């Protein structure tokens, strides 16, 4: 940003260093140094490759250059750098050592992650380095360790990298709370946030700096500290209304800390293409198989390509298919979160060394260290959101003056529309608006426990800290007190656990602290918000030894100590390929083949926490774990653009001919809805009657809609049989005609009341959501001192706990937390609520005599999956019916 303002020069030794490298400090680097010199915090927004990380550290290096000369200075932590990626801390540390060494700065730079040996961690607490690079979880842990104030009080700078990726998550909630606590111990510490381009920088700035309450609550005396600071209606236990939003905030003016927003210069505009495949674009599906040859050609023409996909299964499939057409034997690698860490590091190293031509990857490579040589980004499947696409495109060509090249490859016809909309959005520089996140109550509970393990606290003070953070700005004192009670005794109305308190209040000082060392120890082992699905390690063993392993497992379970066990142990582990979600393995039978780590493997057995597999080179078509669609829902903003484009015939001319013909046919047979309308079609087909609608709100929200509409149709006596949802459309069917249904009534917003409530009671997804909340809040432990509980036990018992709690205390804080999560996560109720509101009075119903062209893709999804509790009963019924059939047949 060159606005002609004179910018202070850097100290001479820094200017010399830049000059020696043939560089000049960039304007945003200077601006940030100046802001820091004035004691101001800053949010730096710059595209990748703009020297952002160095900018963040420059002020610290300048300050440390002065003090580092003194030999007698005491060990004190000056700068804390927090990155969401563990691997990034090591990379950044290495890059930071270079200027420090070359300028002869006598400073200590260290990293601290979950992998740091205990001895080193202990030493770091006794003799802190000048700069510590770490993860959010380690910050929470340090806050919950003994005498945390001593460790943090000298802190002068906190740098948060990739802040846009952390802030809107539960990790962000916990980090914001921890920062508020650390801020109270180290008031002199300035904060620096490093962010990619975002739609709403002000919101991110207030996340970074905290928010100033108009009237801070007066200190309250008294034991429970139950004050009437803000009396508000208790949040409804069930999500009968849209998710409550925090009150509107102004941006910088309200910041708790003086905060500047600094923008780095934007790079050259990206060059984005949508692949127009010669082949027939499929009606449905997510494989991208039809275009693989063309994708391969694009890789061949590029120097190095990153091939992004949306799910792990798609990554495996794309990798497999690319190698099938890899006539030139190009070095193409695979990278996703389920692969073994060592394997992933190997790929990253090869990439950095320029030894690869392409990497097929998932969001694992959305963030991370820059690779200068990448000149093409390929997005397989629709990008689902503009911001993610921009981030991914930014991974190509980190030289700012050259445009990034990107190729979007739609998997099916609707995705052609979506890719086209995304391309236009990138050209306009438009980004998805993020909805401000409301902090999770499970995270609040974990924070309260963590605080009690560190420095004992006064409830009033901890509450004041909490509401100074953006995610908890709207937290009422009443809810805070309930969270406190949940931590202390479980928060049950039946006060039977008062004698098993986890935290206790000193009657003289009113300070809360963890009850005993063991409670604190337990907490520290379970810190953080990353609750992964239950994973099993995938281990490759030889078919020859499978029989022996099986026999050994049986002997071990019987408690026999036979020779077979020691012989099996002598075989050793076999190679660890990575990890896989337990539910995927559960759906497989021994002998099933699937793609993993780039090869076809045969599932043999589960032993303890490992899934044993053997090679299956002879299998040509693996049974791929059925993964319908991606995990990212279509963003609201992009959905809006797709709806507009659909209605705007002028824009059709940019579409491939086969897609244009499809839409033209739809206009003849049915209609093309206006962008703010919801088209509902009913038609008969093969003795059944169908209702199809096109909300374009993503699979999650539409799946919830399907579930609720089915319940309603059931009550109307329409005997619905099932439904299916895609990213764009939803279809319900049954034995009765649906022509005469009052659509306005069917789609009325009141379905979010009792229908939703009744359905949630049984939803398996709800139980999974609850499990995460219960673990984060510390009701159930991921890990107990001494042993790691196997995930399977936890899964089973949380379902039972959910049922019991819901029946006996439906208002419980953690159920409330789970419902709030469901509103955004698995069930996307918030999105559904806004959909129903949007289409009220704008429903267009067409009764047709056959399937419409637009309905074809969703009709092809039918029969692929069963959803929800009804599905579970169906499975039981099938098994039972089969018994009958076998018996009578």
């Amino acid at each position, binding site marked *: 940003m060159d606005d002609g303002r004179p910018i202070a020069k850097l100290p001479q030794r820094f200017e010399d260093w830049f000059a020696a490298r043939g560089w000049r400090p960039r304007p945003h680097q200077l601006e940030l140094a100046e802001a820091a010199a004035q004691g101001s915090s800053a949010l730096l927004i710059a595209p990748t490759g703009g020297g952002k990380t160095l900018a963040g550290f420059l002020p610290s290096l300048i300050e440390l250059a002065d003090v580092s000369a003194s030999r007698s200075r005491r060990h004190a932590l000056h700068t804390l750098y927090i990155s969401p990626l563990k691997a990034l801390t090591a990379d950044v540390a290495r890059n930071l050592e270079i200027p420090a060494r070359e300028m002869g700065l006598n400073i200590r730079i260290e990293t601290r992650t979950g992998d740091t040996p205990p001895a080193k961690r202990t030493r770091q607490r006794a003799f802190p380095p000048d700069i510590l690079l770490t993860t959010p979880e380690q910050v929470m842990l340090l806050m919950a360790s003994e005498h945390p104030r001593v460790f943090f009080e000298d802190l002068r700078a906190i740098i948060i990298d990739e802040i846009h990726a952390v802030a809107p998550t539960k990790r962000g909630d916990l980090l914001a709370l921890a920062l508020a606590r650390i801020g109270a111990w180290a008031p002199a510490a300035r904060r620096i946030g490093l962010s990619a381009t975002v739609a709403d920088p002000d919101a991110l700035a207030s996340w970074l700096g905290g928010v100033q309450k108009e009237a801070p609550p007066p200190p309250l005396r008294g034991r429970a500290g139950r004050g009437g600071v803000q009396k508000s209606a208790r949040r409804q236990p069930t999500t009968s209304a849209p998710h409550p939003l925090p009150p509107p905030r102004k941006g910088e003016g309200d910041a708790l800390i003086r905060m500047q927003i600094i923008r780095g210069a934007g790079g050259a505009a990206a060059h984005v293409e949508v692949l127009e495949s010669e082949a027939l674009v499929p009606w449905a599906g997510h494989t991208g198989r039809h275009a693989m040859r063309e994708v391969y050609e694009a890789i061949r023409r590029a120097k190095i390509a990153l091939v992004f996909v949306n799910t792990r299964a798609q990554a495996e499939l794309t990798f497999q298919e690319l190698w099938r057409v890899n006539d030139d034997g190009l070095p193409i690698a695979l990278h996703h979160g389920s692969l073994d860490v060592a394997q992933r590091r190997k790929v990253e190293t090869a990439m950095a060394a320029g030894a690869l031509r392409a990497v097929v990857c998932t969001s694992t490579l959305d963030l991370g260290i820059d690779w200068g040589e990448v000149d093409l980004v390929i997005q397989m499947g629709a990008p689902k959101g503009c911001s993610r696409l921009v981030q991914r495109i930014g991974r190509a060509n980190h030289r700012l003056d050259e445009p990034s090249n990107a190729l979007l490859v739609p998997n099916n016809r609707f995705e052609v529309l979506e890719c086209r909309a995304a391309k236009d959005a990138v050209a306009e520089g438009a980004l998805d608006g993020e909805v401000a996140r409301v902090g999770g109550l499970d995270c609040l509970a974990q924070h309260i426990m963590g605080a009690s393990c560190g420095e004992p606290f006064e409830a009033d003070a901890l509450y004041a800290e909490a509401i100074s953070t953006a995610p908890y700005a709207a937290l009422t004192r009443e809810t805070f007190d309930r969270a406190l009670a949940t931590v202390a005794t479980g928060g049950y109305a039946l006060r039977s656990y008062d004698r098993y308190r986890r935290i206790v209040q000193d009657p003289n000082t009113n300070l809360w602290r963890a009850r005993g060392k063991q409670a604190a120890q337990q907490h520290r082992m379970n810190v953080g918000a990353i609750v992964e699905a239950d994973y099993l390690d995938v281990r490759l063993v030889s078919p020859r030894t499978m029989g022996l392993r099986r026999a050994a497992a049986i002997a071990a379970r019987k408690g026999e100590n036979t020779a077979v066990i020691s012989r099996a142990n002598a075989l050793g582990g076999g190679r660890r390929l990575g990890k896989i979600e337990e539910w995927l393995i*559960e759906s497989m039978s021994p002998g099933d083949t699937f793609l993993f780590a780039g090869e076809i493997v045969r599932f043999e057995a589960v032993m303890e926490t490992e899934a044993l597999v053997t090679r299956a080179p002879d299998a040509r078509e693996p049974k791929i774990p059925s993964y319908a669609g991606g995990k990212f829902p279509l963003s609201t903003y992009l959905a809006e653009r797709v709806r507009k484009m659909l209605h705007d015939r002028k824009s059709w001319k940019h579409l491939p001919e086969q897609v244009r013909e499809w839409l033209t046919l739809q206009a003849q047979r049915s209609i093309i809805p206006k962008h703010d309308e919801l088209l509902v079609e009913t038609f008969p087909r093969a003795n059944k009657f169908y209702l199809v609608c096109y909300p374009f709100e993503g699979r999650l929200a539409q799946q919830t809609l399907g579930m609720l509409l089915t319940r309603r149709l059931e009550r109307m006596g329409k005997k619905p049989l099932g439904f299916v949802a895609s990213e764009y459309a939803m279809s319900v069917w049954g034995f009765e005609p649906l022509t005469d249904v009052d659509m306005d009534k069917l789609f009325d917003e009141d379905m979010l009341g009792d229908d939703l409530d009744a359905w949630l009671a049984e939803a398996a997804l709800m139980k999974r959501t609850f499990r995460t909340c219960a673990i984060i809040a510390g009701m159930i432990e991921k890990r107990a001192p001494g042993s790691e509980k196997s995930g399977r036990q936890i899964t089973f018992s949380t379902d039972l706990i959910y049922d019991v709690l819901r029946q006996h205390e439906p208002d419980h804080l953690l159920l409330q937390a789970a419902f709030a999560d469901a509103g955004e996560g698995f069930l996307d109720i918030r999105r559904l609520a806004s959909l129903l509101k949007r289409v009220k009075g704008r429903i267009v119903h067409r009764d047709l005599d056959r399937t419409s062209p637009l309905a074809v893709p969703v009709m092809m999804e039918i029969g692929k999956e069963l959803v929800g509790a009804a599905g579970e009963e169906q499975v039981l019924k099938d098994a039972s019916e089969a018994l009958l059939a076998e018996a009578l047949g």
Partner: protein
Amino acid sequence: MLSRSRMPMLSDSHRAARRAPVSEPTPAPAFIRNGDGVHVRVGATEAETHAEGALFIAAHGALVVSDLHLEKGSSFALRGQLIPPYDTRATLKRLAALIERLKPDIVVSLGDSFHDIGGPARMAPMDRKELKRLVGKADWVWIEGNHDPEIPGALGGRTMRELRLGELTLRHEPREGAARGEIAGHLHPCARVSSRGRSVRARCFAADGERLVMPAFGAYAGGLNVRDVAFAPIFPAGAAAVLMGRGKLYPVAGARLIADA
């Protein structure tokens, strides 16, 4: 009684051989559909299974429940995991409804009635009162379990190691080897079935026509797959299962039950 059709022999050996490495196919039908209900044969005696996880032996007016594991919640709270304390209440509520509906002469709690020895002392007063009320409604037999070798006399009822009802023997831990007419608990059987690419795991009654293992009744009790080796000595020829769905029972042939992978 309306039409009652006995199940013929189930044999599906090639399939069982592929699915079950440790056991042979079920030799004799153990379960009989009876309208919406399911009857089970134990030796020569027939009994009704109930979707709550209870067994009613009409010939003796006996209601059998197993592994209540009362106060499991508070035993975890003792160790710092504050899971909801309502498990005892939930378990007793289901039991009360069964007693109300079936009006049994005898109620048999087949062992592990409490999760641990300290359980009875930790009970909330309200729950203790409710339990005593239920015990007073029938001839109440506590079978001793491994988790609760002693039941305090103050709760009422009589305590036995095992109970004989005609040809039936009711005990907590199933005997290894043949035991015609045995009804036991202890193992918390559950079963997994799959269809349409999905699998479901549910608590179940496990039986082979000779003997029966009861599902756990307690709200927080876990489960062990009937395909686990622990069941092999009890059902040498494999067992069929009645799976507990939502308020409904589903009898399933042994050959269709799958292991937890």
